[in-house]
């Protein structure tokens, strides 16, 4: 994949237009991106009393409190596990469906809308659906999971059961996006390459692992990034609708905790410090992504 030059070879110069044209974007970024980001950074060094009457510069105390808080550590751990599980399940299911659609001789066009529409489902709606299907009052899945047992499944009380609900809601909503990208990735593989592989290797499964999957790697890598970011940030809507009054202890993600500590707990300094930690994590992930993407992925 040749890297195109950063800019066009031919450009206009000596014109006020570029300044006028980037101005709206820069203004919006300045006011609603830079300022809040710097503000988060600043606030993370202050301790504010819950009524907002006074605040005190406390150096790194907020950070120290966070890192020493066993609660934060466990939320951190469960966010990682949650993200990994959501990512692998939603990519895995989508991969299976996309490979099947791509291999169909007939009707492959008919399946496409049936598998892509769920892109448009809001995480909040996915949360609502998951909540009622698993609801102790009316949920068929609640009844089904507890059938013939002494009622082991209690998503309102048990954090593991709560994770099951959150994961299934989050995965369900995300399959369509992954399906669209993987199917496009599969269709971009040149037919002649697959035909050459067919002559070289009679085993369909091995052919998939040794030819198709490596050629699909750029797509899958891209989706890995997208899905992790989705699982970390966008699933707030799922959690907050499944548990409008908060999930059982132990079933929170980092973003949810930022929100709860900042708004409900009114701990602005602590919440801001958590925001800053999140920013650092995202930046680190992005760096790794840029480094990794150069080296390990086969481009066609």
């Amino acid at each position, binding site marked *: 994949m040749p890297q195109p030059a950063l800019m066009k070879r031919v450009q206009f*110069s000596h014109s006020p*237009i570029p300044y006028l044209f980037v101005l709206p974007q820069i203004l919006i970024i300045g006011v609603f*991106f830079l300022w809040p980001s710097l503000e988060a950074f600043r606030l993370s060094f202050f301790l504010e009393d819950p009524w907002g009457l006074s605040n005190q510069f406390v150096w790194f105390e907020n950070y120290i409190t966070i890192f020493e808080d066993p609660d934060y550590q466990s939320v951190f751990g469960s966010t990682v596990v949650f993200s990994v599980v959501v990512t692998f399940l939603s990519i895995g299911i989508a991969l299976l469906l996309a490979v099947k659609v791509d291999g169909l001789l007939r009707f492959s066009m008919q399946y496409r809308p049936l598998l892509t529409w769920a892109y448009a489902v809001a995480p909040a709606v996915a949360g609502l659906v998951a909540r009622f299907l698993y609801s102790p009052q009316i949920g068929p899945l609640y009844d089904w999971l507890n059938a013939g047992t002494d009622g082991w499944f209690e998503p309102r009380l048990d954090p593991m059961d709560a994770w099951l609900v959150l994961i299934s809601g989050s995965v369900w909503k995300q399959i369509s996006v992954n399906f669209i990208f993987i199917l496009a990735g599969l269709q971009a593989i040149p037919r002649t390459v697959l035909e050459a592989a067919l002559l070289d290797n009679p085993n369909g499964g091995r052919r998939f692992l040794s030819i198709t999957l490596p050629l699909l790697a750029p797509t899958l890598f891209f989706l890995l990034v997208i899905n992790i970011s989705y699982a970390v940030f966008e699933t707030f809507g799922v959690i907050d609708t499944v548990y409008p009054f908060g999930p059982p202890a132990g079933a929170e993600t980092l973003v949810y905790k930022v929100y709860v500590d900042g708004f409900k707990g009114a701990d602005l300094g602590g919440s801001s410090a958590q925001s800053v930690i999140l920013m650092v994590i995202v930046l680190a992930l992005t760096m790794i992504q840029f480094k990794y993407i150069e080296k390990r992925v086969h481009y066609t």
Partner: protein
Amino acid sequence: MNGFAYWWHRTQPVDHAILIIGVLFLALPIWMIFASSGYPPEYLIQNGVQFWPGDQLIQTYDSVLHDRRGFTQQITATRMLMNSFILGIGFAVGKIVVSMMAAYAIVYFRFPLASLLFWLIFSTLLLPLEVRIIPSYKVVADLGLLNSYTGLIVPLIASATGTFFFRQFFRSVPEEILEAARLDGAGPWKFFIDILVPISKTMIAALFIIMFVVGWNQYLWPLLMTTNDDYVTIVYGIKSVMQNIDESRIPEYNRGFALAILALLPPIGVVLIFQKMFIKGLLESDK
């Protein structure tokens, strides 16, 4: 046996079975929510979520759309839908206008601050709104923009995904088009209006569809921004449904379900009707 093998190969029954399970997995939950919205709450409490649609569908939706009752005490679903359309369309249009202009400046001009501004814009891709949600709230509150469409829409535009989308597309436009236009006497402004905007038409449409859905589905930001019921969007309305259901003795499941279905229909409709364009836009955005 040969005939059977041929039939098996041609009709691919296992593959179809897997795909049909996949289709049902995606569709059944929504279908059951829809079907159940046609029953009175008492029936649902006794019998659980239903598969066949109840006979009160029309009543339920009519009531949700027009009555200020139950959990939606101050506002009808019609108003929430309107707010959602304003958010979805306003967000999409704002984002397209702002990002097209910025991308034009970045791709087609050489100016002293270009690379600095490019990196500033690029950095917004790294940090989603969620990580700076509290200070963003403070900034918007300080500016007096709480409970306004401006405060709802503009901060969401701060991420530069659209700028990168158009930058990618502009760079794929052959350079000779610009050269030909310059020989034909088009300056920077004319080139933008006469040539670049018209040839970006399908890209604009594709991005519009995606951004409409993204804007419509916003949850956390409206949740923080709106304390006044006049600005509640339908996706945010779901939260109050949930709280109501947890708090009341006879929860109005049917009305909650109807609200969810209403929140789903416009984005799903847009995605299905403009499927080709939407997929094109989505795939383009990743390059």
